[in-house]
């Protein structure tokens, strides 16, 4: 298999192995999807067209990509912060949902001047989100319980709590569907570019990326968090307070998801009406995995996923393939990217050959 690559090409391959591995993972996932589409659809051509080119066929459609990228960036950053200290605290999805619910309560029952109002809601939701994320994290730190199980269970609790808030606290009884009253105008985020739904939440997302980038790279706390994630024993030995670093990173992770929920409900829906979870918190896993703990790469991954999603949504409306296919696709990507040893044998053989060619090992 490694026959055709020689000399320089082989060297490039070894140096950029991680990238090739991820590309292979994506290729495998796409191959599976291609087979599924061909088996189940009579219009594979149309599916391919809408999936790949659909999002750039109009401004409104491309706007959809950016709109979707906002919660994706925030959730991706949220999971990134959780993973920084190796905690699979996957409550972001529940936090996102419950903060949509709380944002609707604040928007409907508080009364503040315009401009300040959405900011206050975002801050409150950030605090709530952080506090909620501390539940599984705190239980793990204090009682050593399995953080993933607790977080996933918490998601269900939050889902039912959000539904309760919707049905018993903020529901507009005149509606034929389950939805809250519309938010007052001053409690929504303004649209930035007319003709699309691109709203001021974009600015929030950009600020969040800058903040996390700065935090991780240039602050003492960020260093403590990163070191704790790499080697907590070593961190402890160097005098870093490990437990506060863990809890703070989880708090920040939770508040990012909370901000995501608030921004989404104020920017896109302007009422709380979705009574199932959107799953953006779980999309954050793919984004964080692809983003490799780097806020800038997370942004790129979020936009890429938003593009895929928008493509899938168009496929959903113009062909006979449902939107959920992309869920299959993206989770396959996660699985194969997570597979550390994927192509490791190939890499090993390449390195051996390369070093043999450079005169290092001659007996292989």
């Amino acid at each position, binding site marked *: 298999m490694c026959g055709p690559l020689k000399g320089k090409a082989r060297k490039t391959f070894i140096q950029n192995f991680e990238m090739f591995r991820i590309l292979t993972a994506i290729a495998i996932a796409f191959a599976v999807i291609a087979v599924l589409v061909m088996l*189940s659809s009579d219009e594979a051509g149309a599916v391919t067209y809408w999936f790949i080119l659909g999002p750039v066929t109009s401004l409104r459609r491309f706007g959809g990509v950016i709109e979707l990228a906002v919660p994706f960036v925030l959730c991706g950053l949220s999971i990134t912060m959780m993973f920084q200290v190796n905690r699979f605290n996957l409550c972001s999805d529940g936090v996102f949902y419950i903060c949509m619910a709380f944002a609707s309560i604040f928007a409907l029952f508080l009364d503040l001047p315009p401009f300040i109002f959405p900011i206050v809601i975002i801050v409150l939701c950030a605090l709530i989100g952080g506090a909620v994320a501390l539940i599984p994290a705190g239980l793990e730190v*204090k*009682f050593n319980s399995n953080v993933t199980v607790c977080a996933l*269970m918490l998601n269900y609790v939050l889902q039912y709590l959000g539904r309760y808030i919707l049905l018993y606290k903020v529901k507009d009884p005149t509606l034929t569907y389950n939805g809250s009253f519309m938010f007052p105008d001053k409690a929504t985020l303004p649209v930035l570019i007319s003709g699309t739904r691109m709203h001021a939440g974009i600015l929030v997302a950009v600020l969040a990326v800058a903040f996390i980038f700065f935090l991780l790279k240039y602050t003492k706390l960020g260093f403590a968090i990163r070191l704790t994630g790499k080697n907590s024993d070593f961190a402890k030995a160097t005098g870093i307070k490990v437990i506060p670093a863990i809890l703070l990173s989880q708090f920040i992770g939770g508040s990012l998801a909370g901000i995501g929920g608030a921004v989404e409900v104020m920017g896109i829906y302007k009422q709380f009406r979705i009574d199932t979870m959107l799953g953006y918190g779980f999309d954050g896993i793919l984004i964080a995995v692809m983003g490799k703990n780097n806020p800038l790469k997370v942004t790129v991954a979020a936009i890429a996923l938003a593009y895929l999603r928008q493509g899938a949504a168009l496929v959903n409306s113009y062909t006979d393939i*449902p939107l959920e296919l992309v*869920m*299959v696709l993206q*989770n396959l990507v996660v699985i194969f990217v997570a597979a550390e040893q994927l192509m490791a044998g190939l890499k090993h053989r390449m390195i051996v050959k390369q070093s043999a060619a450079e005169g290092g090992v001659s007996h292989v």
Partner: protein
Amino acid sequence: MSSEMVTATLILSFLYSVIRMATPLVYGSLGAIISYRAGSDNLAIEATMTISAMVGCITSIYVKSMGLAIVLAMAAGVLLSLFLAFMFLKLEANCTMTCVALNNFTTGLAMFLPFVLFKGSKGSTMGQNSMKFASIEVPILKDIPVLGDIFSGHSILTYLSVVVVFLVWFIIFKTYFGLRMRAAGENAESAMSVGINVYKTKMSAYVLTGMVSSLGGLFMSMYYLSWFTARMVAGRGFIAVSICNLTGARPFLALLFAAVFGAIDALALTLQSAFNFPAELLQMLPYIATIIGVTLVSSLEVKRQRKLQAQRR
């Protein structure tokens, strides 16, 4: 009917539904126990149950054969389990991450396939003519007043679950395979040093996990409801993993704990139908109970470890 009669029927139907709700949890937790004994928490029980629920239900729609539905559902569960094991044993993927991705993958597939096959609503086979396990009226038992009301009239899977509990216990603790599996799970290196093929042993354990937990999935789509919906397993896979943790991976104890969680589930259902209490708040109960349970057990474990350490000093 007098009010005492009403209360009595309510209690009887509550106890009946405890057993009914416990059944999928028994199978799920047995699957989790086998994986746990082989070395790791299997958070993909949820996916295993979902995919077998789907495959079983869809097979029965197309083929109208209960036997084939069971076989294919179990095969699907085993395949998913093996895929997971291959990914984290051979390709060294992070186990938790792979499990979570597999769960979401399965949900996506479960939304996608029924829609493509039946062109109906997304992620549901409602309206299709699928098959269902029969409720069995146990002779003699069904005529005993109170006991008959509670223990008779369940599906074959419910009665079978007791047998499977025994079988799993027997396999884990009384066979050579079980011994090898526990050795490989507890300390892979020392197991290897005495000549156990750790990889093969663990893979076999995951085959068993897939077989057992897929029965729980079958129960969901072919008895609990007579159709399949994508999110019907609703976290039972995770509750099953918690039961495994709570019991320290002991099969008979898991049967008991499954009944406890079944009772919480049934309580939510009964309260909801009997009193006018917001269903949403009641539905939180099993999940809150799981969080508390997991925390309680691990905190006890931490205490025990500390005590041991103190004794050693």
